[in-house]
């Protein structure tokens, strides 16, 4: 594994929603195979940051370079990056009018021009991997939240991405379903997938992350290895945040 290769390079990133300065001077390098967890209070800009990484949000200042391609208004460049960067959302966002299998094969068939049969075989492989192959013919509305989120992960994997972005993947789940999703994420991490996760699951962060980034008010307050981050936070704001989410 070549940890020195930078696959996401964010430099001097600034973003505004109207007058509201949502991201301030963000600098961040993500290396190949690295697992990064971004945490922080709601409204701190962590989701916006991760959504800038595949251009679901536009930034006004600074540069974002993914896999050597800079994100600009060039649609071809954006689509090239999106093919290589998978994303998993808080609300799953499966397509409700398609079966699970159709959800998984849509992009490989139409974006990668993969023959349908091959795409279906790949899809079944990933569905088995997230232990849900028996649901392939069902519609998303017939599945539980945890199952839907595992399908969503499989859907992202079907494009064989180099990088996976997770935007609060367990926040909309019932407590008993969180584990089945986290288990899948841990197994991905064990295979050296490059992952950027916005999450409040501190147990996951502690065991899986190479680096934890704490954000507040649109800025990166501090970043550190999990051991240092939990045992020796540098800022009072980080301490307060940790005390609030770890003891309740």
């Amino acid at each position, binding site marked *: 594994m070549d940890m020195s290769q930078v696959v996401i390079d964010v430099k001097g990133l600034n973003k505004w929603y109207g007058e509201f300065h949502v991201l301030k001077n963000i600098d961040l390098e993500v290396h190949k195979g690295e697992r990064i967890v971004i945490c922080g209070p709601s409204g701190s800009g962590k989701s916006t940051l991760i*959504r800038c990484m*595949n251009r*679901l949000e536009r930034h006004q200042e600074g540069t974002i370079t993914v896999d050597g391609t800079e994100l600009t208004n060039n*649609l071809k460049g954006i*689509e*090239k990056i*999106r*093919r290589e*960067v*998978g*994303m998993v*959302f808080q*609300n799953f*966002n*499966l*397509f*409700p*009018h398609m*079966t699970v299998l159709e959800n998984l094969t*849509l*992009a490989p068939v*139409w*974006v990668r021009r993969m023959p349908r049969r091959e795409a279906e075989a790949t899809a079944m492989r990933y569905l088995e991997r997230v232990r849900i192959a028996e649901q392939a013919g069902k*519609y*998303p*509305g*017939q599945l539980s939240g945890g199952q839907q989120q595992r399908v*969503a992960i499989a*859907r*992202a994997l079907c*494009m064989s991405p180099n990088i996976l972005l997770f935007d609060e993947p367990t926040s909309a789940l019932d407590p008993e379903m969180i584990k089945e999703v986290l288990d899948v994420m841990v197994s991905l991490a064990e295979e050296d997938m490059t992952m950027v996760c916005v999450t409040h699951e501190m147990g996951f962060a502690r065991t899986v992350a190479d680096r934890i980034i704490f954000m507040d008010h649109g800025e990166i307050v501090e970043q550190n290895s999990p051991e240092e981050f939990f045992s020796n936070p540098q800022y009072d704001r980080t301490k307060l945040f940790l005390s609030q989410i770890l003891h309740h």
Partner: protein
Amino acid sequence: MSEIKTFVPTPDSPPPLTSTGVLRWLRDNLFSSWFNSLLTLLALALLVRVVPPLVSWALVHAVWTGGPGVCDDASGACWAFIAAKARVMLIGTYPPELAWRPLAAGALLAGVVAATVSGRCKKRVLTGLWPVFFAAALWLVGGGAGLETVDQSRWGGLMLSLGLAAVGILVSVPLGILLALGRRSGMGGVSAVCIGFIELVRGVPLITILFMASVMMPLFLPPNFQINNLLRVQVGIILFSSAYIAEVVRGGLQAIPKGQIDAAKALGLSPWMVTVFVVLPQAVRHVLPALIGRCIALFKDTSLVIIVGLLDFLGMAKAASQDQLWLGHEVEGYVFCAAVYWVICFGMSRYGRSLEKRGPQTNR
């Protein structure tokens, strides 16, 4: 420390039986309060007053067969009039010796409709089948390529109504979808043109558009440039209907959660793929009831072509009742028209309902 116990869920039991039975149903649906009981009794009284005379007129004392004059002494409906005028009502003044051609087209239509409604055919087959049907029907009715040509001025009756409606629906639905997409495209020029068109058309009654198409348009065209009247009316109907369909579809487009589009984009789908595979199928499903409503309205609106001199089903019924040999039977003509219109519209409505039920139940 006590031993840990095993939790065993209680087995399900059936619901109480009080929610069944005829008397129960009567009480719940017809006599649930004194006001509802009163309404039920009033409705019953009305039915008693109306139904027996209606049955007596339409069935018991009706005259079913015979030539002119057979109904002179009858106190009931004269269905013999309908039987005598059936050909005119169905195909207008189309040459009688060639009547098999529109009838064959009608049989084809019935076949294609049956294939569509059955739900057994694949979408791809159906999208190919309909254009083939239209080409075949146009050839059968209009002639050419081996068949004797029948001028458009002799097309009429139910055939004309169905033709105008079928072409109208199959062209104005896609056109309306394109207008709705154009309106929301975010491209300044395109959306301005779409908004302008939609608002202009919606601000004008259909009669005005038909009049413009039929009477005024030829004044603006060069004298040697003739488009036939039927085509102009057809275009008028399509433009009118597509503006309304555009607004219906726009409602559906607005109901698609942003997350759906985000997820599709994040997979690398291009803008047109996002629209075709993710947004439109869901949007159209959302607005299916209203869309079917527009299609039914379009079918009924075709009866307005009478004001520009085309004799459709209703127009032919009216014309038939002017026949000197059969005077005084407008009522039977209109009742027959209403029945046929109702059967077709009700069929469309049922088909719409079955489409709504088909496919996935969304989780929202």
